[in-house]
């Protein structure tokens, strides 16, 4: 499935590279994106440098627990820099805390969810702004 952030990323990538039509097929899913003919892609890329984003996705079904409560780690806030694989928080079910990790080097671009927010497996929990 694609959420709004995924679509935005795909559309950004299409604009940046001057792609007019994009089709994605996989499993029982089909997605077709068509951009209207617009300004020259090179110009668009120049005026708005591509800032890529990456989604940190929930590793389990459970409730969000931020980093820094009782785990000896400093808490995270929007704008903080993180490294690929770094622990960003947990999705907890009972006492077990599955690690939410950074998919790429970057900075935290979204709000940190409220503790206790429920997430499904694969849901976007945090968004990172990654270096283009």
């Amino acid at each position, binding site marked *: 499935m694609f959420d709004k952030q995924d679509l935005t990323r795909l559309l950004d990538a299409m604009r940046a590279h001057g792609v007019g039509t994009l089709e994605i097929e996989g499993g029982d899913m089909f997605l077709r994106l068509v951009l209207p003919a617009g300004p020259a892609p090179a110009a668009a890329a120049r005026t708005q440098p591509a800032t890529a984003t990456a989604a940190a996705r929930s590793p389990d079904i459970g409730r969000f627990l931020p980093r820094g409560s*009782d785990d*000896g780690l400093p808490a995270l806030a929007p704008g903080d820099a993180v*490294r690929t*694989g770094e622990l960003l928080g947990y999705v907890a079910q009972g006492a*077990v*805390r*599955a690690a939410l990790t950074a998919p790429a080097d970057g900075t935290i671009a979204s709000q940190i969810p409220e503790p206790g927010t429920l997430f499904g497996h694969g849901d976007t929990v945090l968004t990172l702004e990654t270096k283009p």
Partner: protein
Amino acid sequence: MIEVLFIPPGATVQDLGRDGYWSQGLGRAGVMDALSHGIANMLLGNGEDAATLEIPLTPARFRFRQAGAFALAGAACGATLAGRPLPRVWAGMADEGEVLELGPMASGARTYLALPGGIDVPAVLGSRSTQLREGFGGLEGRVLAAGDLLRAAADTAPLPLAGFSLTMPALRAPGVAEIELRALPAAEHGDFAPASREAFWTTSYAVSQQSNRQGYRLEGEPLAYAASGELRSHGIAPGIVQVPGGGQPIIQLADSATMGGYPKIAAVIEPDLWRIAQARPGDRLRFRRVTLAEAAEAARAQQESLAGLRAELEAFRVRQGGWQ
């Protein structure tokens, strides 16, 4: 297999201890904090008696000679793997060549490092614990040093790649500065002056710098032994609170002697010994008197809570397996 790059003195390989030789004068040894040890093992699917590395002093550094799983539990010590921060309770994978670094301990006093199947050292007299005084067990009967190699006793079990952590019981009750220890009155409890008995159960005692695996010397209201005549030596066990001449109590711990002649005022119950292991010099302890029935109930409750954690971890492994 991991290589010790740097470690201060004091780190030892331990399991739950060497029972059954007390009458021959050989103490139990074993981990100081059986709860953190057990949880580190549980995170990797090990039996609770698999040997772990007990680390009382940091900084320490280890290099993974090959990729493998590991777990940490106990004191928060600013651990990092390849520079990425890890929480104080952690199970995850390390790649070949990665360095696990333990930084300053912020809260708690001991960290346990577990490997799949336990740390592979030979069992001696039924245990893999290091018997420091006698110089056997564990890794060559000694504390670890740079250059030592620690082998996992089993191949790495499949772990969720991103790693996971576990909620541990808190060392202190919320909002309470002191660490509460439940204790039973011991043989000579009634021979202490009434005011001393009162002070022991109602005032707090600070952990002194003279605290190690043999025992913790405490500082607080002096306790006056009111009976006359000299005591004969008696058997003692981890958790016994003795009061030598100066009136400042000593809690005997994992490497305690098997006999002692000081009067005994109390015995800390086994389910609370882990709290002492995580108390740092300067931390304040308070003793709460319980009955033998309450002590048995506390032991049962702790076992039940561990069984609950084990079941939750198993359910987590099944969920993760379904998604891979």
